[in-house]
């Protein structure tokens, strides 16, 4: 039955015959990289503000939640192995509804990219380049992402895959270096929730860090085995999720809840606490800021790419490359909208918590409609029989 639908869709779209090159491991690595972005630096503080020492538990819950969503995306991908998320979204929702939702999604990813860029711009300006205008750091990051997003999908996958070790390795190094400064007392009580609402908010906020997972919907049709995409998504989200949990544990263990609340970017301060006594370099945090440029870059690239692919789809453009230039000034202006750093983080939290309904709700909606259609069709077939 799905084959039939695929055939019909193939005749409908001229671009549906997609070259297949990506492997499961590539998908896993690229998703694992795409998910990790600049949120890495501030999320321990935001989470601890909501749930205190239950932050690692909340992080783990968020990871489980996102894993579920990821499975849904993989399921959809296996049902429509020739189509990207936007294409089967159009099929399931109809042209008009699909168009509106996709426009919303694209715009949302635009905002995500803008906020991430601004956030990292602030990090750089605060910690390394104090007198450089934030516009300049934002601009350089955006140029990086815009140039990279002009590549075709395989190159984007390759880029994301390549930076995987660059993103994961420094985090693990920091955690290992600061391990002896940690105190397990700081982690206890493991799960003491006073306000269930704040737990929900914390879980939502952390899930918002994983929103780039929808990029999997763009990658799956280009895989050699789209039906095995679930493995890749599980590994990717699991890897990124465990990184977040580890980092949460490390920052909480080293600083304790009260200190984390004071620190703007606890992960960065964790790097400040790390030292290599025998090594030539005394302070590691500038290095980590530098290496994390890769993590931030891949995160922004993923959002940027999702956004321009969505827009190209909405505007029925065959090529997404031209979009990347049109969007560039928009995203630049949007990233400069937050007035100050407090304002920025308020926006980040609000956008994250509400956007999660859009990004995580979208695959749920698609799966529901897909199943409904399937049941209806089965009934029709039965009636005919």
């Amino acid at each position, binding site marked *: 039955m799905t084959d039939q639908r695929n055939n019909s869709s193939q005749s409908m779209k001229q671009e549906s015959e997609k070259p297949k090159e990506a492997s499961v491991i590539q998908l896993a690595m690229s998703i694992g990289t795409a998910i990790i972005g600049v949120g890495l630096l501030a999320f321990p503080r935001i989470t601890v503000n909501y749930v205190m020492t239950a932050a690692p538990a909340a992080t783990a819950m968020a990871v489980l939640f996102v894993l579920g969503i990821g499975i849904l995306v993989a399921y959809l991908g296996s049902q429509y192995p020739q189509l990207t998320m936007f294409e089967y979204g159009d099929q399931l929702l109809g042209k008009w509804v699909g168009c509106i939702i996709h426009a919303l999604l694209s715009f949302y990813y635009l905002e995500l990219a803008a906020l991430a860029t601004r956030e990292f711009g602030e990090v750089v300006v*605060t910690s390394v380049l*104090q*007198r*450089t205008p934030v516009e300049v750091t934002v*601009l350089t990051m955006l*140029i990086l992402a815009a140039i990279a997003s002009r590549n075709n999908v395989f190159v984007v996958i390759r880029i994301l895959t390549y930076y995987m070790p660059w993103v994961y390795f420094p985090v693990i190094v920091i955690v290992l270096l600061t391990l002896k*400064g940690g105190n397990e007392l700081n982690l206890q009580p493991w799960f003491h929730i006073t306000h269930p609402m704040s737990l929900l908010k914390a879980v939502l906020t952390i899930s918002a860090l994983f929103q780039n997972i929808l990029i999997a919907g763009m990658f799956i049709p280009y895989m050699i085995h789209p039906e095995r995409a679930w493995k890749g998504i599980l590994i990717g989200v699991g890897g990124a999720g465990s990184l977040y949990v580890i980092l949460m544990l490390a920052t909480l263990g080293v600083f304790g809840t*009260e200190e984390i609340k*004071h620190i703007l970017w606890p992960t960065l301060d964790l790097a400040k606490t790390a030292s290599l006594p025998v090594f030539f370099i005394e302070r590691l945090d500038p290095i980590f800021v530098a290496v994390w440029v890769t993590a931030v870059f891949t995160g922004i690239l993923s959002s940027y790419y999702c956004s321009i692919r969505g827009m190209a789809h909405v505007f029925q453009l065959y090529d997404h490359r031209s979009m990347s230039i049109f969007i560039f000034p928009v995203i630049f202006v949007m990233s400069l909208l937050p007035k100050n750093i407090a304002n920025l983080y308020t926006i980040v939290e609000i956008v994250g918590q509400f956007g999660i309904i859009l990004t995580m709700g979208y695959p749920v909606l698609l799966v529901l409609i897909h199943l409904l259609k399937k049941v209806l069709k089965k009934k029709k077939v039965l009636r005919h029989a």
Partner: protein
Amino acid sequence: MRKWIRSSALIAVLVGGASLLTGCWDRLEIEERGTILGIAIDPVNDEPPKNITGPHARGVGYRISAQIAIPGRIPLGPTAGGGGKTEQPVWILSATGKTVDDAMERLQEDLADRIFIGQMRIIIVNEQIARTTGMLALQDYFRRNAETRRLIWMIISHGDAKQVLQASPKLERVPTLYLVGTMEHAVTLGKIPNVFLGNYWSTLSSFGREPILPFITGEDNRIYLDGLALFHGDKMVGTLNTLQVAPYMELTNQKQAGYGYSVPLPDEPNQSATLKGTIRHTIIKLKMKQNKPFFDIYVIINGNVHELTSSRHQLSSTLMEKLSIESAQFLQDGQVKFIKRMKRLGIDPIGLGEYVRAQYPVYWSHIETRNRWDQVFAKDATIRLHNTFNVVRSGLAPH
């Protein structure tokens, strides 16, 4: 169309790149920075401090003395230049201000190069400030500045802090580095716990533990490590001398043991044995009895015999056992005295409150603040000590 987009994008990138080239906003040569190596903060005693950040600056006033490295005075490489031996490689500048930032601004006025505190290794605070105005207002400036390292030392000085900064021992060309070396070696020798600035900040933020800082005296060209300064919140309330630091170290599970002590030899009251701990391990167990915290603290120390004043005693396993029991008793006495003093002062530098917060969150929700925990600690907390000392090696062969 495509070509047009392409070329316009290229031009935009080129123009953007060219505009980037015009500004190297943060470029500052290393020799053009006023590299501060250490800072001493003293109260302003005589004249009222002037402020330059405007009339609204409030604060008790600080005199900040900064030790600034003079480029060129410290030659490269291991061999010192022949001529300028007597010249000081550092320069000490002082300025007063109502707040720390105020004083730093004044300092900047005196100094042509831009002040750079990324290489600052030490902050020395006068005991008087720590006791009266407290540390909160003082450390905020450093905490906000991203240049500050987290792995530096904050030290309370007995008497004038500037004097400590000025003390220039002969071992090291740069005085601050000597001071840092002193502190670091004290940590590796097990004399003081490793309380670097970041660690101090974490403790200061937490509610169930009182911070401590190293306590130091400087005289002419010598520096003495006197022990630890005790705090209640951000205010200093007392000191621990070197002997009293040992119980603190034992109770807070500092692995590296470094204190030697003497116990009288069994059967020979006029002779003594000196022992020194090597490794220790502390386990703190918490129970609640009748809604009151009840701590069992197990301290296990391995140590060696360093000296016997009497040659009558041949070292044997029975003697070692006796010494172990006696040492344990000695250590326990010290700890009991320590805890009694802490209860009298109403502070908990061991961090027992953290155990309550971690293990009995419901009970802790009634306490929540540092002051209330200190009260509970002083009144309701019961602490039982269990010391075990193992004499492991004796240096000479037992007969």
